[in-house]
């Protein structure tokens, strides 16, 4: 049992390069431990080892592509080549390491993105760039194909079978133009005059209002005054309208009362009507004979139901005549 535990710990240390696992492994090899303690250790180590591995790779999107890069962005080797931008559309960190990029659906494992590189971890709503220069030895982000004549780019999950995202590239892509999603992660694609590597595709539009307010209203007073004025104007207009309407309604009801009462003064108040009605009610209650121990039996009405309907029923329920 101890050997089994040690073996499992070995596997864990290989898989996760966890120093705590290795340390415990050594301890396990030299010290005889009780079975329960070993199982508990394995369990606890599992907790630690797997805690950082929950990542929704399905949220990754191919976001922007440049096929012909002649005067655009240069890579870390000072060279220009086509590139593919991947966007993490989720609000959680995602590690793209272990996924596959390909230009051929029949070869989904064309470029395996190396595991274990800290740079493959993409922060929430952030981007990463892969250079399609056909020179994978230049680093993690240099793939083993180029985009010159490809019609299709796809990103496959770590199992090499599950398609995460794919895009058909337009034919005859113009030089130094990119093909990307209008808004990061959206389903609408367009050709951009200006490329936006590693930034939001709708950068200029989305930040325009922010930039304006940051420049002209850094404290927020202009916004406060403007917005509060609008709120007050709207509600003042409502107030004025309904004040006028209320006055008209009151006048009309007063006129109606005058007609019905022949202009008798003081009869217009609703409260007075209520008082009169209540007094009359009290008077009628006083007139009636007060009896105690009176049993009242309500007549029980037969509620309609299609189950007892004479129209739909096959048999009519016998109704005893009295």
């Amino acid at each position, binding site marked *: 049992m101890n050997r089994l535990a040690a073996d499992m710990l070995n596997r864990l240390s290989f898989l996760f390069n966890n120093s705590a696992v290795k340390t415990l492994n050594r301890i396990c090899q030299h010290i005889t431990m009780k079975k329960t303690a070993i199982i508990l250790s394995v369990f606890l180590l599992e907790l630690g080892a797997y805690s950082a591995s929950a990542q929704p790779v399905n949220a990754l999107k191919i976001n922007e592509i440049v096929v012909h890069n002649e005067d655009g962005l240069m890579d870390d080797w000072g060279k220009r080549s086509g590139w593919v931008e991947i966007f993490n559309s989720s609000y959680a960190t995602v590690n793209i390491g272990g996924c596959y990029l390909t230009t051929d659906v029949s070869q989904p494992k064309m470029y395996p993105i190396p595991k274990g590189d800290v740079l493959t971890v993409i922060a929430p709503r952030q981007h990463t760039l892969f250079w399609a220069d056909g020179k994978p030895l230049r680093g993690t982000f240099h793939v083993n194909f180029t985009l010159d004549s490809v019609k299709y780019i796809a990103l496959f999950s770590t199992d090499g079978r599950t398609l995460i995202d794919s895009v058909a590239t337009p034919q005859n892509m113009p030089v130094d133009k990119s093909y990307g999603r209008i808004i990061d992660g959206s389903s609408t694609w367009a050709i951009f005059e200006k490329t936006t590597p590693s930034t939001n595709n709708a950068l200029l539009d989305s930040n325009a209002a922010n930039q304006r307010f940051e420049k002209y209203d850094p404290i927020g007073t202009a916004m406060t005054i403007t917005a509060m004025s609008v709120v007050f104007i709207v509600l003042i207009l409502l107030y004025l309208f309904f004040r006028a309407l*209320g006055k008209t309604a009151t006048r009309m009801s007063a006129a109606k009362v005058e007609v019905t009462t022949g202009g008798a003064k003081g009869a217009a108040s609703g409260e007075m009507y209520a008082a009169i009605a209540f007094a009359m009610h009290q008077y009628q209650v006083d007139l009636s004979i007060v009896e105690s121990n009176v049993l009242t039996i309500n007549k029980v009405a037969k509620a309609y139901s299609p189950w007892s309907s004479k129209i739909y029923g096959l048999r009519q329920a016998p109704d005893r005549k009295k």
Partner: protein
Amino acid sequence: MDILQFLGSNLQQFLSYTAFSHMTFGHIMMILVGLFFIYLAIKYEFEPMLLIPIGFGILVGNIAFKDGLQVGIYEEGSVLNYLYFGVLKGVYPPLIFLGIGAMTDFSALISNPKLMLIGAAAQMGIFGAYIVALFFGFPPNEAAAIGIIGGADGPTAIFLSSRLAPHLMGAVAISAYSYMALVPVIQPPIMRLLTTRRERLIRMKPPRAVSHLEKVLFPIIGMLLTCLIVPSGLPLLGMLFFGNLLKESGVTRRLAETARGPMIDIVTILIGLTVGASTQASTFLSTTSIKIFALGAASFIVATVAGVGFVKIFNLLLKEGNKINPLIGNSGVSAVPDSARVSQIVGLEYDKTNHLLMHAMGPNVAGVIGSAVAAGVLLGFFS
């Protein structure tokens, strides 16, 4: 031994699928928060209709899982993700407003329309928080999404933050609903502090009877006036007034009953659960969320001060006999009907026969309109 190794590897694989192997300290913290919400709702009945779904949603959202199972709220294609779509794209808030419109009686407001102005003044809470959020270093669009907490209206807060700063929506929504539940705790001390004993005893005229015509005209004129000026508030205001017309027209009773009954219940369940589930520890637990909670508290305080203060100033312009009891000033925040209930309770503390509830409902529903208008203005500026 081979069989033992096989069993060991199986156990290892099984453990990798259990939530225990993915749980972090943050997840446990959030689960405790969810349990606390449920406790508050059941034990103290603080907004149970909201805190139970949200609290349980927090539990659901913080069960850690292995990637690829398509169960998480942020995983495309998962059931929770489909339900969350209604929050993310602002579908649920207008439906809730439809229900609110169908259940709200605007008679108190129509009979004494000057109370609308209190509802406008209390929106100062939104912009007070906006200014402080800018001071804290938030960009203007995020500051606006945070400021809307001061409107004390959950659906409006969700609607605006989903449009302006979706990454903050969970924190904004939780903050808004938490402080709405805490209205009976936050507001009374401020109301007592800002009013004199004489002011608290002011008796207001009983509201006059409102005719059917006025009630029917209110949603029509209200929609036209507000939406012509602030079209960006159309999803909320349009649905609010539409719901009210269903109620007041007198000929669409069935539609009104559905809107204010089963429909709003369904949407409340969905919005509560998904907003709660969106608070996954990995995205929710951050200093930003703590700042948002602090700003939310500040916005409620500013809103209450603005409402009560406005009534005191307004009273200087009103004749004796027409004066407004400043204890209804707090109701300008749109936490319907909790803030109106607070006015009633605090009013009764000083005069057992002075019932302020009906008067307080006026600014309370005006606050709903005011916060929706404010949200429309912010949306217009930043979208």
